[in-house]
């Protein structure tokens, strides 16, 4: 399985660490809604098909990526920075920085 890191290009899955279901929504830090916290901490989607996941390029640039992976075929249909901020990445690339 290859994941195309927006910084580093296509890399083997061995360089990445799975960081969980990307659909989870963290309650506001001060929230006391235990149900919401329970859902965030323990509930995971388990779809047969496209799944929104967080992967860290731990053996590379260490960026967290939002990856859409098909759980049936392992096909990766989209990769984006989890922080949603492409500007800094683009700037680094333009300047030839790693």
């Amino acid at each position, binding site marked *: 399985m290859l994941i195309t890191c927006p910084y580093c290009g296509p890399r083997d899955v061995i360089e990445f660490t799975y*960081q969980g279901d990307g659909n989870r929504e963290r309650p506001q*830090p001060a929230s006391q809604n235990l149900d919401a916290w329970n859902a965030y901490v323990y509930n995971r989607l388990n779809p047969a098909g496209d799944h929104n996941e*967080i992967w*860290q390029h731990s053996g590379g640039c260490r960026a*967290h990526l939002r990856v859409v992976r098909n759980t049936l075929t392992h096909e990766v249909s989209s990769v984006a920075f989890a*922080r949603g901020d492409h500007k800094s990445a683009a700037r680094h690339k333009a300047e030839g920085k790693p």
Partner: protein
Amino acid sequence: MSPRRTDAGGRIDRLRTIRFTFDGAPYIGHAGDTLASALLANGVTLFGRSFKYHRPRGVLTSGVEEPNALVTVLRGEVREPNIAATMVEIYDGLTAVSQNRFPSLSWDLSAANQLGGKLLSAGFYYKTFMGPAIGPLKGTRFWMFCEHFIRRAAGLGRAGIAADTARYERMNAFCDVLVVGSGPAGLMAARAAADQGARVILSELEPHFGGSANWSGETIDGMPAADWAARAAGQLEGYDNVRLLPRTTVWGYYDGNTLAALERVTDHKERPGKGEPRHRYWTIRAKSVVLATGSFERPLVFPGNDRPGVMLAHAAERYANEYGVLPGNRIALFTNNDSAYRCALALKKAGAAIVAIVDVRPELSSEIRELADEVEAKNLSAHAVVATEGGKALAGIKVQRFDMVNGALAGDRRSIQADCLLMSGGWSPTIHLASQDGAKAEWNAARQAFLPPNATQRWIGAGAFTGSFSTAEAIAEGRAAGLSAAGGTGTPAALPVVEAAPGDPDPAPVFEIKADGKSFVDFQHDVTAEDVRLAHREGFISVEHLKRYTTLGMATDQGKSSNIPGHAIMAEALGKPIPEVGTTRFRPPFSAVSIGSLAAERFGDLRPERLTPMHDWHVANGATMYSAGLWYRPMIYGHAGETIEQAYVREAKATRESAGIVDVSTLGKIAVQGPDAAEFLDRVYTNMFSTLAVGKARYGLMLREDGLAFDDGTTWRLGEQDFLMTTTTANAGKVMQHLEYFLDVIWPELKVHVTSVTDQWAGAAIGGPKARAILAACVTGTAVDNAALPFMGIVHGKISGVSVMICRLSFSGEMAFEVYSGAGYGTHVWEALIEAGKPFGLVTYGLEALGTMRIEKGHVTGAEIDGRTTARDLHLDWMLSKKKPFIGSAMMDREGLIAPGRLELVGLISLYNQPLNGGAHIVEALDEANPHDSIGHITACCYSPALGKYIALALVKDGKARRGTRAHISDPLRNRFGPVEIVSNHFFDPDGSRMHG
């Protein structure tokens, strides 16, 4: 001259003689021979004994699908069992032995098993090893005694016990087009793709490229097909963008168009060349794959179809045409399709007499009748072979009239003398890789075969793999596939012209001839047609159950020749058509893969070693090093004659009496920097960091999202926006990842950067009543007195000319300082500290003394922060800020985490003056014979020089409330039992007067 070697022909090098042994007997073969062809040439018919019945077996095939002729190859002390003789290229000195026979191959005691056929039927193991439920042997070990012998009798080769001395390699390769199989289709595909400029890898599991061209006897572009193939392969060698991999089996098709292949680099050599591995494991990432893997011929199922001398038709054709070997002199054929007639012609041309062609079909096409006439064979259409005769070699066959519509036999049995019977039950495309890819194969009624499914990944099929069995089709499809795989659309020149024997690719739908006697479906696992029907009668009607119950297709050949006949017989028993019975999915590997190649260079301990900057000093000064995760740390600096306990007690005692120094470079260190750094730390830690003054440090605790304790450490504020976080050695990586996750995914709006700086700093902790005086003696540029450097204060100065950062904090409970310098100066600063400490009696101490002093102080580490404990369990609830939310704050007060009965941190004092052990259980009432009702366990233990007692930290149910009470250690594993007193975890100096000074 060898008895079965033809006078001319074949693609062996008759000028090169090769000597080898089989079962100790010397034989001679030629370069280009396999072990199977060389033994056949020498007149050997008996290759092995079968799995269950120990029936004599010859060689059935000429390739990778061989189920019968399995041998063990010996190289020195190293033995490799279950190798198909058809896949062993002979070399001078090759030593091979047969398997599953005792005392010898030709005289095998267990052959008597054949007589007990009813006992050894399907499900034998499940039925037999239940043991007698009634009778005199009930409840005895008699059956287990029998099992030993039965299991020994059944089986294949014996695994070796000598270590494998061979070297294995791993390779990663990338290409635009991977072509699997180098028959005419594969060669055309590789050429077409290469001409488009694509990077091509062509793999072939045999030693020579060309596939069926090497033995088909056909003509391509006016030259023998084998010459055409050799020329095509030679041309490909000249391409810079083509990599040729002979002797390479692509055995796995994984997602992302990643394929696994095994290259047998030196198995065919007497000894490997310099630097050559035995096998090479290839991981190939292909943009596109051409599957040109050909097809396997199927056996027919009839009584005695396993007798030595019975062989697949095309295998005999190959032995004759490629190796110059005749498998018999008087050859009969038995077929349900046209392809066998071509074989008959080839063998006739090679010099054999074709005595009969038995064909289940009543009608033959005129061109096939002409072929039969050409070989001058008795043509018995609408007949079937119903028995074979002979012992270790075939003597003759019996045939009878056969009606293929209802399978009925009629008329008298006729005997025909023959020393070889060739059978052809049609062809099955080698769809294994496509099946691994995921889709379900489709039954084609005309071809009587499962054809490859539609591709789910990027592959294209060509040739016999797709059910196109003629060479002309293979050539056309191969070129089209290669073009398409490379993304080309050109209309190239004319295709090579093929001259081939005629023949219809569709066989008659006949798989089995039902007559008395054992008819084998799975030769390697000795599964008969009757076993399949028995399984059906016993209720195993799913094809997956059938497979497991009868073990059909589960031998090392993975049913390459037996699956389809097995399915057909099952389908008939069920009264369903074959496609409704379904097929099992093929899984990797396609054929056996050496374990060595999977491990390749990864065996042994290849973890990196992490050494602190002062490592060499420790080793040179008598430290016993201890591996902690990837790190190596001094355990003790032992003196001559000291035990470990004596050494650490001395070190800890000296530290508390004067001063000690320990290397703390392994602590995780993370620079947390940026305008929002303080805010970030407030969210990450349970306690406040935004209130921390510059130049001060604070002890912090982190929780996980679920509210359990995660890690602890001190964080130093070096500047308004600049913090240095320390973590426990073991959790450094995890904490870093935790921080990065929250910054990247949860709070991207925070302007904070985290950087691992563990390796950039060398750290030494110096503690004890004399520690401050020692620092005062060597630090310049700053004062270190209580005013300049209060508890948790940080100063910058120099030691022996090197800049250092000193923080006054304490893990040992003494007045203590952590001195950090650039890693490159670590040893320099360390030595300066040692030198300055000499007049004060400074000692070096290791992990054992460090642990001892922390136990005395009741500090927690990973043994207590074990992923199950909360801050409250560890009496760290004073660190849980109520003024702000933090990671874990919402979940930490859940019912179960604050319920009574939780394990809480306590101290234990041994009341029987014996060492306590980590992991030992604690009980209220001792019951040595039947230990029960544990109330907790020990997490850390030592002899405390400060208390003069054996002490421990423990997690005990409602531990806080039990302080002052007694309990018992119950450690049946180490046979240690004894009373302890439960106390506070703060054994020593609980009010901290020593470290506050």
